């Protein structure tokens, strides 16, 4: 076990974490930033292996250089797996256990996409929207492949256009929200002038992508690899589309397991005040973790959290206006892309809901709480520990989250065996 000490520890190297680390270091604090991915940048900025010169690649490079200049220690491929106390975390890196002791912790662990089960969603060829995007960034070739992108939210269009730049043929972008809501969202964008919304309004107006609002996939067919997708809409009319890949994403859900392990209060995301303080002293949170609102919200929240963690409360408060605007945008996202009830009825009895343990819907549909479901059906007991099925069951059945248990990610037993108490005279 290796011990490291820092004043400010930032968990997550996406926009929120990067901004927090830079702000705290700028205020003179010693800062360590860690992220479980080998590459910096989080979900949005993580570099494309074949294209380091992309705008995102350049953004991350610039930030990396600024962090290095400010003396920030950046540890990649390092995962926080357990906590001894809110500011004493254990992380796992290359078969080594690190004990990280900080004065303040900034949580910026982002979100994951919500995948809703429907017949055929486990076929080879069906992906999460973000999952497919990540695979493409990691080198997967989609040139000439016919792709249907389905689900909800601005991410669909962003990913569809990125896929098209890589040579994919976008057959359809199916947006579950109604045309009217989509138009309302589009109209609202002028109130939030920014790079993100500019891009979105262009995509919405240009009609460049074959966007169909008020429609969603209800079955993926194949033998077993995906061949066709059946699409339905509010009137109940269905049609079947031929395709090679289906990318689905029904919005994002904050990744709150670490925050919950530290006993931070959580509702739709981690609950924070205007200075990004959580309910636990010395623990701050920023970005998608506190509620879905895109990278500009993540940046301003990260900056506020970093400044506040460094004790620069006045500078942190000066950003209140930007934060308010970002939160207003987040509320519009939540309102205009709210999931329609029909999506709850896509599952059939034999639809697999837990892929790790092969648990069908018929086994879980009558259960009322997550823990009992798990004990009875093994749903969520597999290697992913419910990261995929728990948000889906929360949506389908209203289950609250199960109590998070260490390790937050699977770890070799030999590494976990290095755990030792460092606080004398306490139980934990």
């Amino acid at each position, binding site marked *: 076990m290796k011990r490291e000490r820092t004043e400010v520890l930032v968990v997550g190297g996406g926009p929120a974490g990067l901004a927090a680390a830079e702000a705290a270091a700028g205020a003179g604090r010693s800062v360590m930033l860690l992220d479980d991915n080998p590459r910096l940048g989080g979900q949005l900025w993580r570099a494309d292996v074949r294209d380091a010169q992309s705008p995102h690649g350049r953004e991350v490079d610039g930030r990396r250089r600024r962090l290095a200049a400010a003396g920030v220690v950046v540890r990649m491929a390092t995962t926080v797996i*357990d906590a001894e106390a809110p500011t004493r975390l254990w992380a796992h890196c290359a078969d080594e256990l690190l004990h990280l002791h900080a004065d303040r912790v900034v949580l910026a662990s982002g979100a994951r996409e919500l995948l809703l089960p429907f017949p055929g969603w486990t076929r080879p060829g069906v992906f999460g929207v973000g999952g497919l995007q990540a695979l493409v960034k990691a080198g997967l070739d989609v040139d000439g492949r016919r792709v249907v992108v389905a689900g909800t939210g601005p991410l669909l269009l962003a990913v569809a256009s990125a896929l098209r730049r890589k040579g994919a043929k976008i057959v359809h972008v199916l947006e579950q929200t109604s045309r009217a809501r989509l138009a309302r969202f589009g109209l609202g964008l002028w109130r939030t002038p920014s790079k993100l919304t500019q891009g979105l309004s262009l995509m919405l107006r240009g009609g460049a992508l074959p966007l169909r609002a008020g429609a969603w996939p209800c079955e993926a067919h194949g033998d077993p690899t995906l061949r066709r997708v059946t699409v339905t809409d509010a009137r109940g009319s269905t049609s079947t589309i031929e395709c090679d890949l289906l990318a689905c994403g029904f919005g994002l859900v904050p990744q709150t397991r670490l925050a919950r392990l530290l006993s931070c209060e959580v509702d739709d995301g981690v609950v924070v005040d205007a200075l990004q303080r959580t309910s636990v002293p010395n623990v701050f949170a920023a970005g998608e973790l506190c509620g879905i609102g895109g990278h500009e919200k993540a940046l301003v929240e990260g900056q506020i959290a970093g400044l506040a963690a460094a004790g620069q409360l006045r500078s942190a408060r000066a950003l209140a206006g930007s934060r308010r605007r970002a939160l207003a945008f987040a509320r519009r996202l939540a309102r205009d892309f709210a999931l329609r009830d029909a999506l709850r009825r896509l599952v059939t009895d034999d639809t697999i809901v837990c892929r790790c343990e092969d648990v069908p819907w018929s086994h879980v549909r009558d259960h009322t709480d997550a823990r009992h479901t798990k004990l009875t059906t093994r749903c969520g007991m597999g290697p992913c520990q419910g990261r995929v099925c728990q948000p889906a069951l929360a949506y389908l059945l209203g289950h609250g989250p199960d109590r998070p248990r260490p390790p937050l990610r*699977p770890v070799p037993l030999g590494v976990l065996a290095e755990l030792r108490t460092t606080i004398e005279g306490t139980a934990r």
Partner: protein
Amino acid sequence: MTLDCDVVVVGAGIVGAACALRLAERGEAVVVVDRASPAGGATAAGMGHIVVMDGSEAQLDLTVSSRALWREHVGSMPDAVEYDPCGTLWIATDEEELATAEVKREVLRARGVEADLLTAAAVAEAEPGLCGGLAGGLRVPGDAVVYQPGATRWLLQRAVQAGAQLRPPVAVERVGDGRVALRDGTTLRARHVVVAAGGQTAALLETRALDDAIRPRKGHLAITSRAPGTCRHQLVELGYGRSAHGHAAESVAFNLQPRRTGQVLVGSSRQYGATDASVEPGVLGRMLRRAVALMPALAHLLIVRTWAGFRPATSDGLPLVGPLPHDPTVVLAAGHEGLGITTSMGTAALVEAIIHGAPSSVALAPFAPARAMAGGVGA
């Protein structure tokens, strides 16, 4: 006074479930009440090792008879019980433990329990993953493993088929004089009330004399990802007895269980004084270091989850099974510490004998709650 039923069973852990089944099959009108979903208490947190233990004569009586009752159902248990007759392999790390193994063999054989001493070479052959340098072992082939939440639900389902009624979750506030007061304001009346509320049992009684009789003894477990063939028996170090019966504030012992999924359940720790169920890194680390010391290859397996639970422990290691001295309508069935999965079956037989005044093959006296009451027996 009209009764709502013959017997109310408070608690739908494995002990309450086994009692409910036994009584329902006997023709009693049984109502089972739990404040939460069945099998969510200590039962959910433990290992499902069905094991003969010889900590005392009474413990041996109860575990031997219980194991026989489990074995009666081999073949009729549904898949969800995951009954696996893998047997126990007790590991002797040194000559002293090997001597313990020899004594244990004699004690078990005297009860007709099959047990074979293994040389160090035979242990290595039976379990190639174990480290070298062991002194030998004792194999008890009749022991088994179950998935205890599945077993509990199976017992309850059969109880319901036999006519028992399982109430929707509601907490019990008080029990006494043939009455069960529920949090929702209802009072159930019955001829007998079986209190199988595990560690919460004493709090439901009118007497305060049992408040310190059942203490929580915390235990940690960890489970690996799938790695079939890692071990074939439930593996326990003989030093475990020291850990189980000693009263040290905190101890760990090597205890490994093969699961039907190919996963390995790794245990275990014992601690008095802890009240919060969170996983303690220091204890978990010690427990895992012990596991790697005896089975080095475990170091490479992934741990997907860890947790901790509370064994309901009494000071003499025996459960409290029997009527309250001043209120024979109330029959306790609680305090099974680290053996409740095993002894749920035998406990249900004792409870049946008590309620029907029938003869019991296991002596009742050592389990009588009176022994644990503050202020003297029967006070």
